[in-house]
């Protein structure tokens, strides 16, 4: 079973390094998919809003990491 654990860990590690970044990105995708169409936002703006949210999440994640690693 050790080999299976290793494969699963490697596969998970391909997509997730910073857990907060991955979870926040998935939550934002879910919001754009399920909730954004119910809000009074023109359909043509949904893609732009998707990008802006992801860019903000990335920025917040790297700044948090920079602060945390240097402070510790």
């Amino acid at each position: 079973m050790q080999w299976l654990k290793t494969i699963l860990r490697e596969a998970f590690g391909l997509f997730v390094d910073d857990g907060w970044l991955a979870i926040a990105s998935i939550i934002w995708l879910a919001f754009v998919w399920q909730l954004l169409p119910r809000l009074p936002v023109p359909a043509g703006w949904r893609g732009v809003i998707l990008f802006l949210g992801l860019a903000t999440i990335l920025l917040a994640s790297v700044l948090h990491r920079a602060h945390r690693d240097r402070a510790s």
Partner: protein
Amino acid sequence: MLVYWPHAGPTALAAFFASLVEGVEALTVVLAVGTVRGWRTTLLGTGAGIGVLLLAVAILGPALTWISLDAVRAVVGTLLLLFGLRWLHKAILRSAGVIALHDEAAIYARQQQALRGMHASATRWDTVAFVLAFKSVVLEGTEVVFIVLALAAGRRGLLWPASLGAIAALAAVALAGIAVRRPLARIPENSLKFVVGVLLSAFGTYWAGEGLRAPWPGHDWAILGLIAAYLAVAAVAARLCRWRVAMTAQAAGR
């Protein structure tokens, strides 16, 4: 076959750069194993690893066309986005000096030292060399296979540009490795990772948006806009991180 060049060009480029980075990392281990343990079984392990990866592309590539395009775009786009953001996140932190740069020469030296400590094989067949070369090629190559398949999954006809980009990069790495017989430490790996992170994040965002019914202004051309936008965000993020590191260091010094 209809090829959409706003996608085909960046797709081939993304596959090329990503495969170049992974190829360089695999080459470092293969060279270390080959020089210490001998070339015969090392090259057999490398060949077996490449065979497994080609088989994966041959099976999974056509299999993706059996699933509905919207579902593929949503799932593969999300995975590609997570994969790309992970690369970009690390590349920004490396360029800001928060985490250490990837050093192929140091990895090569460490690998050689570890291999010298192991018992030499009494026969012509060296299991250690075979397993290490095979594992290194499969581990790094799995990322190449994922990138090629994910980049190609969004639209029919993109498997060829993605595959050609990857094959060109791996051929270039192999030829350079044969020529210099040293790790390719001069390749600006960290800058390449920055560019690859930008490209993969842009493609992942585009395909996830298409799959989740979030249309893009400019349709196919939006991919070029996303590449430019992620590049700008990453450059600003790297500057802000450097500033934050300097401020934290200053505060700690007081």
